[in-house]
């Protein structure tokens, strides 16, 4: 396994391939055919066409990926040397919950981490909310983070402003464990690694990224990253949301997949987005994370989902 990293990375970052296509290829090669990726990469064009049903464009992608293998070796060496972990989808270290939540269709083919990998296997909750959350929602986030620390649950957040940042800071404050899911490549997070040096080394924080290691921050990656925040969590706590955007669609998707989505519902305002979520099946909770009863009027509204 150890020296298959370059092949894993090459497949994981095939340009324009869907996540599902990449994952299916890995499953096909490793599980169905019991081949190594190393051997697979030695396949000739005919085999790829006839046995793996590669299309012309895919053949070109494959050839490019193959040409880049020696260069990837240098990248892998750097990652290993600097204490990063490269975790392919079929590794024991890969968070099981991610596969359960996102399935073959959306699970990242590879993840990169820095920090104590054991955190990935703990019960985790996502605390999500908007970047410009109000004081009250931030206080709520702090309460939930404390509760999670007391219950030995891991807090997953996305290192954005507002609720994300509060969730992380509070988790650290209460000596809880957290996962930071980056909206960028893991090699571009130097300032964060400096800031959380102590927590990363002493087992409080693990940083995780699914993107090519040197990819810079972008809105696209930030949106894509949201899915993995939800993917890593067993439960979702919504601190504050609008009726659109990443927080909203993630929460809706969670409800649809029958996961526990808790939403902070302080104002009992039937016009609020929180109320809409409750109508869709989210569980209303108060400032301290305790469930509350809410009367719901039955009038469904159409909501946007992940585009697939």
């Amino acid at each position, binding site marked *: 396994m150890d020296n298959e990293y370059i092949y894993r990375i090459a497949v994981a970052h095939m340009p324009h391939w869907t996540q599902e296509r990449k994952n299916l290829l890995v499953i096909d090669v490793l599980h169905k055919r019991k081949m190594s990726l190393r051997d697979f990469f030695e396949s000739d064009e005919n085999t790829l066409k006839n046995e793996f049903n590669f299309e012309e464009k895919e053949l070109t992608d494959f050839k490019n990926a193959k040409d880049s293998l*020696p260069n990837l*070796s240098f990248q*892998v*060496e750097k990652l290993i040397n600097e204490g990063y972990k490269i975790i392919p989808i079929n590794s024991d270290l890969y968070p099981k919950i991610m596969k359960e939540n996102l399935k073959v269709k959306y699970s990242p083919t590879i993840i990169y981490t820095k920090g104590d990998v054991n955190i990935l296997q703990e019960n985790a909750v996502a605390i999500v909310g908007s970047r410009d959350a109000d004081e009250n929602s931030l206080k709520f986030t702090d309460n939930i983070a404390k509760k999670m620390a007391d219950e030995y649950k891991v807090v997953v957040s996305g290192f954005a402003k507002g609720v994300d940042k509060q969730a992380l800071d509070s988790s650290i404050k209460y000596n809880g464990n957290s996962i930071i899911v980056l909206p960028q490549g893991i090699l571009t997070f130097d300032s964060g690694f400096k800031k959380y040096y102590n927590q990363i080394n002493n087992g409080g924080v693990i940083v995780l990224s699914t993107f090519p290691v040197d990819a810079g921050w972008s809105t696209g990656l930030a949106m894509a990253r949201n899915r993995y925040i939800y993917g890593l969590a067993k439960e979702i706590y919504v601190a504050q949301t609008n009726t659109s955007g990443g927080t909203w669609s993630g929460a809706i998707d969670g409800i649809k997949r029958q996961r526990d989505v808790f939403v902070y519902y302080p104002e009992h305002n039937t016009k609020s987005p929180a109320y809409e979520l409750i109508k869709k099946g989210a569980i209303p909770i108060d400032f301290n994370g305790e469930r509350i009863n809410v009367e719901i009027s039955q009038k469904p509204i159409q909501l946007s989902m992940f585009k697939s």
Partner: protein
Amino acid sequence: MENLYKQLTTYRLNVAQKENLPAYCIFDNNSIDEIIKYLPTTLDELNNIRGFKEQRINKYGQDIVKIVTEYVEHNNIDKSNIHIPAKKEKREKRKEETIDTEIEEIIVDCIKNFNGEFGKSGIVKILKGSDSVRKDYYKELYYKNAINSRFWGYLKDRTGSVIGNTIEKLIDENKILQTDGIRPALRISDVDYSKIKTKKIEATESIDINAAAYTDKNMNRDYHEKLLSKMGYEKFYDNQWNVIEKLLNNQRVLIIEKTGFGKSLCYQYVANLFYEQSKALAIVFSPLLSLMRDQVNGLKAKGLRAECITGEQTEEENVKILENAVNGKIAILYISPERLENEIWLKYIPEIKLSMVVIDEAHCISQWGHDFRPSYRRILNLVNNLPSKFPILAVTATATSKVIEDIKIQLGDELEIIRGSLYRDNLQLHCITCNNLNEKMYWIIRIINNLKGNGIIYCGKRADTVLISEWLQYNGIKSAYYHGGLNKDLRLKIEQSFFENEYKVIVSTNALGMGVDKKDIRYIIHMQIPENPMSYYQEIGRAGRDGKLSQIILLYSHKDKELSEFFIENCRPNIKKYRYAIQKIKNKPYSKLNLANELYLSDNDADTMLNDLFDQNIIIKKGSVYEYNPNAPQLDEDYFIWQKQQKLKELGKMVKYAEYSQCRMKYLCNYLEDESIQACGICDNCKKYKFNMDNFQKIKNKIDDFYSQFSIADNLYVNGNEIEVRSLSYYGDTEIGQIVHNCKYENAGNFPDGLVLKSVKIIKKYFKNIDLILYVPPTVSGGLVENFAHRIAKMLNISVSDGLVKTRNTESQKMFKSKRKKLENLKNAFFFKEKGEINNKNILLIDDITDSNATIEVISEYLLNNGVKTVSVLTIARTVKGDE
């Protein structure tokens, strides 16, 4: 599974070491693969693992089962789904494989090719092409049939028994014949030969190739030799061609060949060819700046596109080279392993089209190698992650079988090993046993006066290089000393002068040599035994590269062993400091300097510790800062103990060489696992030389004279003023050092008159116009230095003052290891009341022992700030510091 693999290979290595066997004899990689696959946790289950029968199970079974059980439990692995097939089942399966006409055809073709030359096992070995082939068949085959080597490794994916079974089947069917004799040979049966359809194996077919440019032509030696002529060479040696052929095949190759084999030509040629074919670039990792420079200049002179990236060039120059590399304008790029840390390099490397990786001085990869380097661990990580069909060449001139086995584990089973004889017929080895340093100094003069040409004297300690160099100069022999403590410019200058034969002798620590490609070094003398025979072989290997007779002399005394043992025993800081350091680095990143300061470590100790922690994967290095690895393993303290034991063992083997009574070359070659050679016939033992100490007394008198005027200079700079510091001798293993020690610590009374006389001589020789003598006030009490200074002053008729005093108690300077701490300890501790007494004076300051010059520095600074014109310093002894 990497973890288990590592555990098993580590276990195997340890056992191999204990039993003094190659690791694969303990159990081979096939066994390891099966263990990892089937995870046997009982002896019964282990019995079904390939390679494990009663004997191995009895010997190693318990241990292996324990390792696996722990692994299974630790990782919570559910074993219920794993079915371990019985050996019989596997055999059945293999039998099925045997029905394979392709194998038959290949076997017949192969036997036809080597008709009558080899028996069953020979043919199996040829077709499997594994490395165990080497000893019996390899050389023979290669010299005879370099081009026919297309069979090598052809059936590697089949087991030996499948091939063997098929051969037996063919014999049974009368398709091939087995002749009688001590070594039964296989021939094609006359009768049935025609009936067998032999498959014509083209070279291109037998090789799973990657490069599109690879054609029949590529296997044609004539074709390549024509190309070679462009590089200014006529032809390849067979062994060189052998290497080249494999690289063209995208294989991983390790060459162990002595100097002069032309290892560089192999990769330079291939790199150039790859470049011509696809504008791709070969990376050569080399630890030696000077060697890189030479090679690049040489290649450029031939019109080839070679460059190197070094810290000596400016960043702009390096960037320019990397840009050219990205643009496909460079064929060979030399870099030092440390370069892997460099961010600029990492920025460009993803864009560069790569053709091959070459690792020079590959023994540095192995922890068994005598100079294993942490930066080489990074090369290993790199190589482990390179694609399998990517040519890699590892090159070394010295490797024991342990090193080879280790390199093989690291570079993978597919590694092809090409190994030549290490016998050097132009080196005449001698060892002269001496009782003390004086005798060694006697021999040096005798030897050098009798030798023509230029040579190197290797010393174990930096201090000795100075002493011996001065001694040679005292005898009118032109020499210079060289060690890692000298600044870079000076070292370069000395190297250059040595090249141009400006000095007859360079007296050096082992810092000189690795990269020195001087062909006509006529002699190498060692003042002490090196730590092991491998280092020795490498160091003496620098002599006589031109093939002409060269003299190798080891001056050995029994005390050497103790000195080396001392170095081995004390090569690391206390283990508690390791644990403390880990805790510290866990909480914040450290530079070497900061860590050394906080843990009271000397520079050398800090280096050692950080290298160890890096090596054990506990810390990572980012630029000049060390960080904790969040998934770090526990510190392996046993490894240090183990390594120390290994080193002591190796030292024992070096001592054995010195005390050996038979052929010395044979001893060295055998140590390096080259069993093939006969006695050299020219070493002192073969020739039965006796070394008589003729005229010893005459030279001894000269040595005494030499010592009476010898002093060591080590100048200081304080506030822009140069302070000349002279010491009569080194402390430690010297006559004067011993006297000082006895007077100071063993109550032997005042320093004797001899020292006063010598001091006066030195002062008269080196220090002019002294107005006033001061001495360093004692830390605790005692008037030794005061008494000494007064006696000197009296003889010189110069006034002396007791006015320099301490304002407060200080800790003994010996408590502190770093100079920074020593300076802090003494800050503002000295005072001179009557400033008028010293104003505008030339002062001579006297002390007994100096170590880091910290005391001298603090006092000089104080004096200069208080009106003193100049300061000169005399100390009786100087400690030996910073030795490698």
